[in-house]
């Protein structure tokens, strides 16, 4: 991520002068997101996701360290069964696209550069710590529910899956419920 030249407000590159682009209007962004989702429904018959690929990649990395533990594990061992491949999933390839797409969007919008985003009352170190802790909680929640905001709430929401709607409102409930207790992190 380290790139000093991206820190400037107006990094002059090549011959032109770069102007940071504003965000899209939320409703416009939502329509485009919905169209991408609709596209995947129509072409491959399934939606988007993120935590599934993270699970497979985590499993693969862990397999280097503790192969027998991973292979015997009830939750992730199936990815390494004979004839199966840890990468053999639509979501893994989708993740590759997300990486490239996010990078391209960041570079063309100007919202790019190594930073630690944090609330005004929290130090960089504790922000990283809480980001890690939050990530761990999210990881458990996503595996328990079988998906995350993309794979459950967004995809399942659009296909009117009952459980996905229950998941979505639970996420908002959990978030609003916890917000008061972690307000020092963000406000």
């Amino acid at each position, binding site marked *: 991520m380290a*790139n000093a*030249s*991206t820190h400037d407000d107006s*990094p*002059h*590159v*090549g*011959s*032109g*002068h*770069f*102007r940071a682009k504003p965000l899209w209007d939320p409703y416009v962004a939502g329509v485009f997101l919905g169209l991408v989702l609709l596209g995947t429904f129509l072409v*491959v018959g*399934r939606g988007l*996701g993120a*935590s*599934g690929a993270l*699970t497979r990649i985590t499993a693969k990395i862990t397999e280097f360290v503790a192969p027998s533990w991973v292979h015997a594990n009830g939750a992730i061992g199936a990815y390494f069964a004979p*004839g*199966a*491949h840890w990468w*053999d*999933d*639509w*979501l893994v*390839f989708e993740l*590759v*696209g997300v990486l*490239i797409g996010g*990078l*391209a969007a*960041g*570079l*063309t919008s*100007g919202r*790019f550069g190594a930073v630690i985003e944090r609330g005004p009352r929290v130090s960089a170190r504790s922000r990283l710590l809480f980001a890690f802790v939050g990530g761990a909680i999210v990881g458990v929640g996503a595996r328990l529910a*079988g*998906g995350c905001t993309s*794979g459950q709430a967004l995809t399942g929401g659009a296909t009117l899956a009952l459980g996905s709607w229950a998941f979505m409102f639970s996420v908002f409930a959990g978030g609003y419920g916890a917000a008061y207790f972690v307000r020092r992190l963000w406000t």
Partner: protein
Amino acid sequence: MNPHIEIESTRAVARAMAERVWGWEVPIYLFLGGLVAGLMLAVSASILVLGRERVTKAMRLGLVGAPVLLSLGMGALFLDLTYKLHVFRFYTTLVPTAPMSLGSWVLLLVYPVQIGLILALPHELVGKQLDRFAFLSASRAWCERNVKALAGLGLGLGAALGIYTGVLLSATVARPLWSSGALGFLFLASGASTGVAALMIAERDEAMNALFAKADLALIAIEVSVIGLWLVGLMTQGPLYRQAATLVLTGAYAPAFVGMVVFGGLLVPAALETLSLRGRALHSRWTPALVLAGGLLLRFVIVYAGQDGSFVTG
């Protein structure tokens, strides 16, 4: 989280993997060889066109890196035990018309020219070390005087090295995917663009970086056209060739080739470089990094996919 979709074709790939003769060593070697060819071409062309005064620190670093990377690539090739004896034979039997042995001699000629260029234009990393050796000063003076000639040689040998990395495949084993004259030029164009991309990652001079970006764009355009020629050629050549082309276009290697190499490693970085030249995208080292990753993956796809199809089994 979601159900598994069809895996029968994955099994076919797994089966093919077990039968593969050339492992990861060969694509690594071809990538590093192409990268070195690209570095030599880019720096030599800069010396000839812009003059030695414009040679930046990054280019000098590229010159120092070239023989190191090439040796790493050769090391990878020697690791490929199955073909170790083959490599040895490349050098011992010089048949001037055989592309393989010719290419191996190109490899050996590349080193002295690279060393000459380093002596003429040393990076500060090696410059201080070189000063310690008095006996080098005569040869350094000679190299500095003849830097244009060395650059000319570097241009020629760089091109030969780049083409050789592609010809090596088409000449070694008869495989439908590799039997195309376009492969040499594809590897040359790809090697050149990865060489320029590597320089872009190290370059701090903005004017030079813009120049590199333009050169890289032109090379990517050439590479995409050569890929097109290569595949159209295969598609129109006969059923076996068409089958080989289908393998990378819609078959098991399509996600890697179409999605990651062509889209992620060529089209997206080309778009980002164009936009950044026009001031509509930030300049970042991640853009040339995409080109490098795409170049590496291209070698893997071509070497692996080529071995998955043969004239014998169809």
